[in-house]
């Protein structure tokens, strides 16, 4: 005879305000198999769990029902309470009376209470049919894949590799470094981005536990946590990296000039190029789209001047495969294109530039030798207007979120302008100054005093040309008047946006993304670096806009998660997986077709006892099965059962109401 214990939680006011909890307990007590029922303010707290443990011993309970929040929240907590009391943890059943009742029926307490009682009755009925289950152990491939070689990917790769776990780092461009390599100085301490980043880039290249695969992208990911298989496309670089010494003869002689992406198109690079002098690896690649040898079969100069014979125009894309156990996604961000701001004359006026273009100009290794110059006439600007929130916090034209870093980098830009052009004057149009971060507010305050920048609180409504000046018209909301500023140069603090390839990557990895294209974390507060898919983690701006300190912290957090995952030789896995009763299986293989994880294969068994004739049946790979239940639903001969969700269990639930 089953002896069920029922524990109903108040969840503070979350449940108790809308569900009559004592009434639910009374209803539970009327069920024949329920030998003990009680309510408590917070069941998940330690005293709450103690009540469960005590009751198991005192009342010789055979299964437990906890009526509380979603099992996604605390199923693990209560399972542990059961095993601490010596009971098999899978004899627990959670009735979700918060998300499924109190939260959604706040206007009708009577109905909410009835529904909560029904949910408890179902859980009790199911728990009676629950069986003892045991965790499954699966082997783990202790190698991590990091996608993206910006500061997030670099930090994650280094931290994982330092724990002596091999890392495969995939970067789509010819060099690692990402957006940070394009920055001049970094807020709020103004240390040079290159100086703090390049040592880390070199560490990546020389680390014995890191395999760096530049100029490549991820094509396919198969498998499950601990046992993924990844396909990587290594784009043809047309340069043999093994023999190339990076001497530079090829790009010096190359006659084809192309807009330089690293410098935001302000100057030109060659068709064979390294993105920037500190690139890692410091080997050139040929841009197949622009190289005349590859497009028209004419030129071949780089091959002629290469002393090592490293140029190979016949090189093809290469597909490589790696077995890995975990993935860190660190694909960074894109700068938002301000084209929709037609009233600013974006695209018409050359002297309106974006913040990253300004950053390249003032950068010591930039295209203008560190001096901001007007693109129209190459003159040094005196009056510079910075406009914040271009795209950010603008639902009409851009995106509704705050990009988080623009207030700080614009402050930095006013300082850099002041350093480079002493007699310049900066104006900043802003909505708010958001300087939450260690040393940030002090940085903004100091910059305002030191540079004498004029801060104007209000939006810019129009920019027009007067002679060779740009007239910036906006509102100064603090004096309630329209103001016009005569500018030599206008810098737009454009929003941070999600990489445009993120949705494709998310589909490929089987993880989710939000309406902006940022990859979604498992829980916004308590699981900020995990995704909903086990073994895939997020670092940096690919999840949401963030600054460098936060990005680095998140990357290190990812590394800790990966190391934790790889701590043992095997991994524990929930036993809720499918099993095949081969006696019923007709071998139709419909389950093989519907399984989204490729967990079902076919097997041969004898027709009958002692028979030599064989027939085909389905077989589940228990390491791969995720317990989704698709095979159970498609199986026409009810040969497949899902542990924890067996037919008798489900039928019991249905019958109970």
């Amino acid at each position, binding site marked *: 005879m089953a002896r069920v214990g029922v524990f109903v939680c108040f969840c503070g006011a979350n449940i108790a305000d809308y569900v009559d909890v004592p009434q639910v307990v009374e209803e539970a007590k009327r069920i024949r198999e329920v030998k003990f029922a009680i309510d408590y303010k917070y069941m998940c707290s330690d005293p709450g769990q103690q009540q469960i443990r005590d009751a198991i011993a005192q009342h010789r309970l055979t299964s437990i029902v906890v009526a509380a929040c979603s099992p996604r929240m605390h199923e693990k907590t209560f399972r542990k309470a059961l095993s601490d009391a010596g009971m098999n943890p899978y004899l627990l059943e959670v009735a979700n009376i918060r998300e499924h009742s109190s939260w959604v029926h706040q206007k009708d307490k009577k109905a909410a209470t009835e529904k909560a009682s029904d949910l408890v009755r179902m859980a009790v009925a199911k728990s009676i049919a629950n069986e003892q289950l045991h965790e499954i152990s699966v082997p783990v491939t202790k190698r991590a894949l990091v996608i993206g070689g910006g500061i997030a990917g670099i930090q994650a790769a280094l931290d994982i590799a330092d724990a002596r776990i091999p890392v495969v780092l995939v970067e789509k461009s010819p060099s690692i470094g990402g957006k940070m390599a394009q920055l001049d100085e970094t807020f709020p301490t103004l240390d040079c981005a290159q100086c703090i980043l390049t040592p880390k880039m070199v560490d990546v290249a020389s680390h014995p536990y890191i395999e760096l695969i530049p100029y490549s992208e991820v094509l396919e990911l198969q498998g499950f946590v601990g046992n993924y298989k990844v396909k990587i496309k290594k784009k043809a670089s047309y340069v043999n990296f093994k023999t190339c010494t990076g001497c530079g003869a090829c790009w010096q002689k190359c006659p084809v000039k192309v807009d330089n992406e690293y410098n935001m198109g302000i100057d030109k690079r060659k068709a064979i190029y390294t993105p920037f002098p500190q690139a890692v690896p410091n080997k050139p690649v040929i841009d197949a789209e622009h190289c005349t040898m590859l497009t028209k079969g004419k030129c071949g100069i780089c091959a002629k001047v290469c002393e090592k014979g490293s140029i190979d125009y016949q090189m093809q894309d290469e597909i490589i495969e790696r077995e890995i156990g975990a993935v860190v996604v660190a694909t960074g961000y894109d700068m938002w294109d301000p084209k929709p701001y*037609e009233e600013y004359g974006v695209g*018409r006026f050359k002297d309106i530039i974006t913040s990253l273009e300004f950053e390249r100009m003032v950068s010591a290794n930039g295209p203008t030798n560190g001096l901001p110059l007007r693109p129209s006439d*190459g*003159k*040094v600007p005196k009056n510079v207007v910075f406009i914040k929130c271009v795209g950010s916090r603008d639902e009409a034209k851009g995106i509704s979120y705050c990009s988080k870093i623009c207030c700080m980098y614009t402050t930095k830009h006013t300082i850099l302008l002041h350093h480079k052009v002493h007699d310049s004057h900066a104006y900043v149009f802003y909505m708010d100054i958001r300087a939450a971060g260690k040393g940030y507010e002090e940085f903004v305050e100091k910059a305002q005093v030191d540079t004498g920048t004029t801060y104007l609180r209000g939006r810019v409504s129009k920019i*027009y040309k007067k002679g060779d000046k740009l007239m910036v018209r906006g509102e100064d909301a603090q004096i309630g008047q329209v103001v016009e500023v005569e500018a030599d140069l206008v810098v737009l603090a454009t929003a941070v946006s999600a990489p445009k390839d993120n949705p494709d990557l998310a589909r490929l990895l089987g993880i989710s993304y939000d309406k902006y294209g940022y990859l979604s974390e498992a829980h916004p507060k308590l699981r900020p670096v995990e995704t909903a898919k086990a073994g895939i983690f997020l670092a940096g701006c690919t999840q949401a806009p963030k600054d460098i300190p936060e990005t680095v912290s998140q990357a290190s957090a990812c590394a800790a998660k990966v190391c934790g995952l790889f701590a043992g030789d095997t991994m524990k896995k929930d036993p809720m997986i499918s099993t095949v009763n081969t006696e019923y299986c007709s071998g139709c293989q419909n389950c093989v077709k519907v399984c989204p994880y490729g967990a079902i294969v076919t097997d041969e068994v004898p027709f009958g006892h002692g028979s030599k004739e064989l027939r085909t049946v389905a077989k589940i790979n228990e390491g791969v099965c995720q317990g989704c239940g698709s095979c159970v639903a498609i199986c026409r001969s009810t040969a497949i059962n899902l542990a924890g969700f067996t037919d008798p269990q489900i039928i019991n639930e249905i019958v109970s109401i």
Partner: protein
Amino acid sequence: MKKLTYFPGCSAHGTSEEFDKTVKMVMTSLDVQMEEIPDWNCCGATSAHTMSESLAYALPLRNLVLAEKLDNSTMAIPCASCYQRLKVTKVHMDDNPELCKEINSTVVEDGIYQGKVDVKSMLQYCFEDVGLDAIKAKVTKSLAGMKLACYYGCLLTRPKAITNFDSPEYPMSMDKIVEALGAKATEFDYKTECCGASFSISNTEVVINLTGQILEMAKESGADAIVVACPLCQSNLDMRQPDIEKHLGKKIDLPIFYFTQLMALAFGMPEKDLMFSKHIVPVEGALANIGKIVPEPEKVKKTRKAVEAESEAE
């Protein structure tokens, strides 16, 4: 032969007679047969939509219903205000059948609205339906030598969700039309600024100020005339110009043409038929530039070093 439903609006029979007349001349020349909506009524601007929402819809809706009896797929309107009222009404009626039924009940004796006639401004019709190639083909007397600032005003392209035509901030359709006629369109950043509209009568100072800025910017752009596609813009820019000149204390002297007047001129129609005598600011000076082509000053490309040296010297 194309057919087009025509809604002239009240100004076409008064202050903007020359717009109405040249539209008709140009359309005939372009082989477009215009049919005026029989018994059309006032569009309601601007009194109706500031007083009563239902009246603001009902007046244009009656015109839309009457237009459907003519069996043409498109209606074109020379006046920007009329265009705005009819287009807003069309979009809101199409999107909201409930509201449409309610409003339609007030003008039910004229018919039931079906939403089958597209509403366009005359500018939009010329740009989209006639097309630059057809316009270019008709030009017998190029306007080369004229430098024109194209002024669209606030209503022809806004709001984008309603008009769905050209850019709401920096439209180019009229610029392209005058360039098809051989003239040069200047870079004019005030092309969609507000002229003050009907405040011309109730609060003239507002118009003097706003229109004054538009005229000054047009002058600065190097234009010798302004081109418009709206009767109220024309009247403010033209009629208030002497007062504005007095207010600014300087000469502006920019004649204000309807784009159809210039089309007719370029199509070789006699000047005396284009009603230039109705203008306040004399047009002769601007028209005298036709044929006089000043070569553009050759741009000297400086090397980066020269520029750097120059800015260092500064």
